[in-house]
């Protein structure tokens, strides 16, 4: 199994979710995140005091898939998340030893 993690622009979440559902992914986890890469933040002014806000809001998507589906899922995800502008984010995958469905105790790919 593989854990695919994607950090993307928040407004792409709906499209990514739909694309993954259409592909047949049954579940994923989404977290609100903030960070920066090459896209830098912006400046805010409060009564003349200027603040540079470096961290940009992002969403972090985590999805567990079987090994042979990983490349396709990454491709679907990247395609749905892309706007072509700076700050589109990153996607990566890591191998996963085991997974358990808490309700039934099923293990491995059956738990996905």
């Amino acid at each position, binding site marked *: 199994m593989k854990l695919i993690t994607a950090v993307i622009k928040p407004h792409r979440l709906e499209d990514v979710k739909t694309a993954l559902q259409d592909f047949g992914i049954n579940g994923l986890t989404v977290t609100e995140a903030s960070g920066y890469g090459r896209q830098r933040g912006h400046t*805010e*002014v*409060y*009564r*003349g*005091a*200027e*603040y540079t806000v470096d961290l940009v809001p992002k969403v972090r998507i985590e999805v567990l898939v079987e090994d042979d589906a990983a490349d396709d899922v990454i491709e679907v995800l990247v395609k749905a998340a892309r706007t072509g502008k700076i700050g589109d984010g990153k996607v990566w995958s890591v191998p996963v030893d085991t997974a358990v469905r808490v309700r039934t105790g099923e293990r491995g790919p059956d738990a996905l």
Partner: protein
Amino acid sequence: MPDGFSAGDTAFVLISAALVMLMTPGLAFFYGGMVRVKSVLNMLVMSFIALAIVSVLWVLYGYTLSFGPDAGAGLIGNLDFLGMRGIGMNDLAGTIPVTAFSAFQLMFAVITPALISGAIADRAKFGAWALFVALWVTIVYFPVAHWVFMTDSGKGGWLVDRIGVIDFAGGTAVHINAGMAGLALCLVLGKRIGFKKDPMRPHSLPLVMLGSGLLWFGWFGFNAGSALAANGLAGMAFMNTQIATAAAMLGWLAYEKIKHGAFTSLGAASGAVAGLVAITPACGSVSMLGAILIGLIAGAACAAAISLKYKLGFDDSLDVVGVHAIGGVIGSLLIGFLATGHVGQTAKGLFYGGGFGQLGKQAIGVGVVAAYSFVISWLLGQAINKTIGFRVSEDVEVAGIDQAEHAESAYDFSAVGASLARALGTPAHSTPTHSTAPAEQAAEKAPEKTVEKTAEKKTEVDA
């Protein structure tokens, strides 16, 4: 009711008193939105506590010190009305009952110390602040209110009744007074940790907008109500209040757009308050066009003045000096130019052929109140700081003053956060205070230890 009583005037002043009361919670939100999440409750309750403390002191001795018959030289009222003795239910002050007049003036005494709190956001011990409020209204506000508001045909307060300073609703007694006290206190307490270094963004601008809206609404009671009658002067003061506030918002936003490149919501709210402050002393003596001028000048000048704290290095956290002291000075001095002589008062300003006379009187009023407030507030702040301590510890300030001083947090939007909180006891059985908590913990721990020990012994036996 006796002759001279006016039901219309009384109804108007009572409603105005209620409007002015609402300004203190309004101010609490205005300030509360501007601080960070970890200190918003402290900011709110610093204003709220003034409602409690000052109301009680007002009845005990505040009213008589401010509005009792002059004790001599126009400096303070005598003790004729100590504990409100001798004030009959049907006694009149002008055309309204003394009770109504006293209720109206009480609300001014409440909001003035509350205004100071913005200068020392995030870092004042609550007990020390409460003590300061009680002492400050006693030695500073009550006497100054007597100087500025107590008229008794030449035998009242020295500034208003003997020199002839015009302060219709409290530009000196309320705003310069609170602003200079704020300057003194932020110097006594010192800068917040991270001042000019850490981001200290307002945590809720919608709360700030709500607060400024409530202040604006209440201010009609503050200014128009100061006519103490439902008459043309009240109407004029009402219009001037609206117009100057509008113009000041435009002035602040224009300055901000030119200087910083954006029209901010905080600028709109702050500009409105700056205009309300500046028109306060002047709303009973200038024309509506004069009110526009006062508003524009005050809005732009206060927007510029708030950057002084960064240049000079004093942490007037929420700009009490920049908005209230500067706005109060501008409004009070501009009367010397713009008083028409036929609105509420007969004195004419420079632009209406009155020469420099009134301007000089205004300058005396401004200088006297500013100096008195600054010096006494600084001494009072030092005295409290040297005895019980005025500032919270560094750890408390960094962690957030709400938890340490009030044992509460303002917001809980997180489901996880709620489940992490562990109740120490239910209100029905015991209150979760600091004194009972360790005892309960000890009681819980004791049986656990015995269980562990017996278990250990058993394994030993088994082995």
